[in-house]
């Protein structure tokens, strides 16, 4: 028999101002199963919580209802209070008589009537509640990092230094990602590879890091703390093997793969750090679709700058030194009609950097920059842009470029200077396009593989833009770097260290505790239709074979993986045989809640009770 204790909170005047709290407690005191009902000024205060714990012990309560504010605020508080009193915390329910009642209705009988009904609903629910225990899941303390650009390297180093094993998977033959292709960083003007080299040395010499290049994750199964990844490694080509000597970013000591191989690893966490790509030049017809000589992407120009260090910069078509170079910003960025609607964030800064580095190499040359707005919000960024314009004489032209075409060995640029209102024609020797940053090719495949979300463009989505910027909606999978949104190197490293700290947090315990409000399936009732599996967004429904002692297959039923289930209840509403149910929101709880709202209860003064008909 249920012994329920009811605690009605006055919340100062917040509830008691419009709800007759004494009447709520008084009416519900007579409700079947309620053995204790009282009101108090502030239930969430220490004395209030103590009342709950004390009454549980004194009255041998089997359930507690607190009629107060929204459970979003204090459900945890009162569940802990129940635990202190020796009651299972899941035998506690809250009735929201503040946000949903006293704060939105005036002081009148209907408001008190509503508070009584909401409280009665909670009482009826708790009568059908079951004690639950948090689910304990073992945690495999090894992390899989996908992508060995600067973000992936940072995650791997942080986790390895934290004492955990790291599997670092890179689809290219080299590591370092885009950062290895850059000339210098802005606004510090440090050589990109000089910064990268010690990081790589630490990474490659660390015992905890297992690096797999030429490799891709092709399958991921399991759940937080217990993932299983299949990694496929392709043989390296002769050209890639040649890189070994030529290029310092090719990891030495990694044996050359001669055959395709597949390996399975068990990991507890996964961090996609798959970086970005730039908008394909081939898809920009007004700028020649890549067919006009000396129209370069910003990444191609980075390579020219990198290889011309200490020497002269020469354009690719004929090796001539370009005397006039036009930089065009926002190519397919902030372009809702043809490109990406967002700002790629880093182009203003790297364009200024490229213009300055160009001027260092060709002091008598002229650099022009077509821009829409200059966005220089980072530390020292504004000063950097000013330096480009004032010290290096870079000419900033506000406006768009309508057309680029080749003529007599030049690249003619037609644009508009919207500040002077004049049309501009520049016969340039080279043009550099600051192309929009886009998600890395294959980003959507990775999202699908890992079961994480992606936005309209293909950037992987965080669990919350402000409060959970490195977590995903899938537990145990964290994001690092530009795969989440366009960002610069410094921001990528910070984001990656954030992801690594989430991994370390997860790994700080051998077991993981999860809320037990998840689905379960009664194997005796399950007909094995697996409709639940079709609708489950968490891939938590598994196939279970029931066999007799001789191993003969008797039946195939659905079962819920406790580690994966997020508790949405889709399977429950889908199950036609009623085999599935959801803890905390069971059918019996919900139907009893609905019955508690019956019009048969409405009269608070008469002794009318359920079973008395519809009163028509």
């Amino acid at each position, binding site marked *: 028999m249920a012994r329920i204790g009811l605690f009605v909170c006055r919340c100062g005047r917040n509830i008691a101002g419009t709800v007759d709290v004494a009447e709520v407690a008084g009416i519900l005191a007579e409700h079947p199963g309620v053995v204790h009902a009282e009101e108090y000024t502030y239930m969430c205060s220490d004395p209030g919580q103590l009342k709950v714990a004390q009454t549980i012990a004194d009255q041998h309560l089997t359930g507690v209802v607190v009629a107060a504010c929204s459970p979003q605020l204090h459900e945890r508080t009162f569940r802990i209070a129940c635990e202190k009193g020796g009651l299972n915390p899941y035998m506690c329910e809250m009735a929201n008589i503040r946000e949903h009642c006293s704060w939105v209705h005036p002081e009148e009988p209907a408001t008190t009537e509503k508070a009584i009904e909401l409280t009665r609903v909670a009482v009826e629910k708790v009568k059908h509640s079951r004690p639950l225990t948090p689910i304990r899941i073992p945690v495999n303390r090894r992390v899989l990092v996908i992508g060995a650009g600067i973000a992936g390297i940072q995650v791997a180093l942080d986790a390895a230094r934290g004492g955990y094993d790291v599997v670092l998977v890179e689809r290219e033959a080299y590591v370092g990602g885009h950062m290895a292709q850059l000339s210098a960083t802005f606004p510090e003007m440090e050589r990109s590879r000089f910064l990268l080299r010690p990081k790589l040395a630490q990474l490659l010499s660390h015992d905890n890091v297992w690096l797999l290049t030429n490799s891709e994750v092709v399958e991921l199964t399991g759940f937080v703390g217990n993932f299983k990844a299949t990694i496929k490694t392709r043989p390296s080509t002769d050209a890639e093997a040649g890189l070994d000597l030529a290029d310092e970013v090719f990891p030495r000591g990694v044996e050359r793969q001669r055959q395709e191989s597949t390996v399975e690893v068990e990991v507890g966490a996964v961090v996609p750090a798959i970086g970005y790509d730039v908008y394909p030049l081939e898809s920009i017809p007004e700028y020649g679709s890549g067919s006009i000589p000396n129209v370069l992407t910003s990444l191609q120009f980075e390579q020219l700058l990198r290889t011309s260090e200490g020497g002269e910069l020469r354009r690719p078509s004929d090796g001539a030194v370009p005397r006039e170079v036009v930089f065009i910003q926002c190519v397919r960025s902030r372009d809702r009609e043809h490109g990406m609607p967002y700002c790629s964030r880093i182009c203003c800064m790297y364009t200024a950097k490229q213009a300055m580095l160009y001027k260092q190499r060709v002091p008598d040359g002229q650099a022009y920059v077509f821009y829409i707005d200059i966005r220089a919000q980072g530390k020292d960024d504004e000063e950097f842009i000013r330096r480009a314009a004032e010290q290096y004489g870079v000419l900033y032209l506000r406006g768009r470029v309508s057309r680029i075409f080749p003529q007599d060995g030049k690249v003619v640029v037609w644009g508009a200077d919207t500040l002077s209102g004049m049309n501009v024609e520049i016969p340039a020797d080279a043009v550099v396009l600051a192309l929009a940053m886009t998600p890395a090719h294959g980003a959507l495949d990775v999202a699908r593989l890992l079961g994480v979300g992606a936005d309209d463009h293909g950037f992987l989505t965080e669990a919350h833009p402000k409060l959970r910027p490195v977590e995903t909606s899938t537990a145990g999978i964290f994001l690092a770097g530009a795969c989440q949104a366009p960002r610069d190197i410094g921001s990528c490293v910070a984001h990656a260290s954030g992801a690594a700290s989430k991994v370390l947090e997860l790994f700080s315990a051998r077991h993981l505790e999860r809320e037990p409000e998840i689905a379960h399936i009664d194997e005796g009732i399950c007909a094995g239709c697996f409709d639940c599996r079709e609708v489950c967004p968490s891939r938590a429904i598994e196939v279970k074979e029931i066999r007799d002692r001789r191993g003969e297959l008797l039946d195939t039923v659905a079962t819920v993986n406790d580690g994966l289930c997020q508790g949405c209840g*889709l399977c429950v509403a889908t199950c036609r045989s009623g085999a599935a149910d959801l803890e905390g929101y069971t059918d019996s709880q919900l139907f009893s809640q*609905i019955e508690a709202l019956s019009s048969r209860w409405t009269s608070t003064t008469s002794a009318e009770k359920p079973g008395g008909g519809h009163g028509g």
Partner: protein
Amino acid sequence: MAELNPPPWEPRIVAFVCKWCTYAGADLAGTVRLRYPANVRIVKLPCSGRIDCFFIVKALEQGADAVLVSGCHPGDCHYSDGNYHARRRFRLFRRLLEFLGVDLRRVQFACVSAAEGMKWADLVSDLADEVRQLGPYREYHQMCAGDGTGDERDREATHA
């Protein structure tokens, strides 16, 4: 006693809402002290996808004059696509209800996000007004009692 002056009839509305969006939106309406009529009773669920069509039937059977189901906007589901499943389910269910003769104005669906406290308050106000115009949902119980012959008579009884 107060029996001399029985309170005038007020609509009873049961709302099945998702805890991530509409429940929090209703919380917000409270936090910013909006005003709306006290006719609605919220039943909290983890997702609109958890809502069994029987819940709606049960609520009507228990005397609700209208039922409201409210979940997340498309694309906002905490579980990625629970609200799409719910939407599909209720589209079909409404066709069944219509076939059976249930007045669809009595069973409504909405999307209210956690940030839409005002929308929640307006929704409840409008629905309460609409149901007040419609009157008590006696037809449902007469329909269930097998008295499917006298639609006209039932309506007269309602507005008598």
